[in-house]
């Protein structure tokens, strides 16, 4: 796929156009990347495509090779992989707290101890997410800035 960048000046409309023969997974990933840079993620819920504001997402989980976005009241499936979202959403205060899960630090209400050196994050949605022992150090560093 060829990549072209064209300057439109200060008055022109900014647009990312993907011209493709077929809408493949790769195309969806590029779309998802561009949208996430703008503060939203593409997600499918009840067979409908939605734009989900990154700030509304509580956590992102990978289950059986599929990636899901969880907001306070809905779940969306996204075509992006969790490792891609981890890189992409780091500046938006998302942090990996276990192998299959990224959490929005702005959506954690409190942290509680769990069994065997793990911690439990209580989210604004009322859900609880396990902070794996291996990711506690990264969490401390992220919070200290």
């Amino acid at each position, binding site marked *: 796929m060829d990549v072209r960048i064209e300057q439109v000046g200060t008055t022109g409309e900014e647009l990312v156009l993907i011209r493709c023969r077929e809408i493949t997974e790769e195309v969806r990933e590029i779309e998802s990347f561009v949208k996430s840079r703008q503060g939203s993620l593409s997600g499918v819920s009840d067979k409908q495509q939605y734009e989900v504001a990154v700030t509304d997402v509580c956590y992102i989980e990978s289950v059986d090779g599929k990636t899901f976005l969880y907001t306070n009241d809905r779940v969306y499936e996204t075509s992006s992989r969790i490792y891609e979202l981890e890189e992409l959403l780091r500046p938006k205060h998302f942090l990996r707290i276990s192998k299959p899960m990224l959490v929005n630090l702005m959506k954690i209400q409190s942290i509680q101890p*769990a*069994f065997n050196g793990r911690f439990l994050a209580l989210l604004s949605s009322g859900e609880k997410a396990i902070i794996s022992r291996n990711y506690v150090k990264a969490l401390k560093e992220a919070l200290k800035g």
Partner: protein
Amino acid sequence: MEFKRFVVNKLILFFTLSTLITVTVALVGSAFAPDERFGYGTMLLPIKYAALCMLPTFVTFSRRELSPKAMLFRKALMLILIEAVMMIIAFTGPEIDTDRPEVILVIGGCVLVIFVLVHLFLWLKDSAEAKRLTLDLEKFQQLHG
């Protein structure tokens, strides 16, 4: 868990155990043999017992994070092994009067109490850490919110 962190945790456990064993020996000793007098060598016994009781704790080591169920199983195994170690010490060493069955029961009970106390201390330590993390999180959210 990385081995270095595992060893540091075990060192903390060792000193906690030494303290608790010293207190237990003092309490049980004053109940069963209040008039007994010992030499300086006796002061090393809690350290010796704590060091020997540390050996079974290595059954909880795993490079990958264990599930709560697997960890619970290993903790139960650890308790059984610690009880076995203490019984071997009691029956093979000259320090403990194993002719009195109540002494054996008290040793078994004390091991269980110390086991519970150690885990209670670890829980309190994690609880304090969770509080610190929650405070750091609140500061983080105020700064970036």
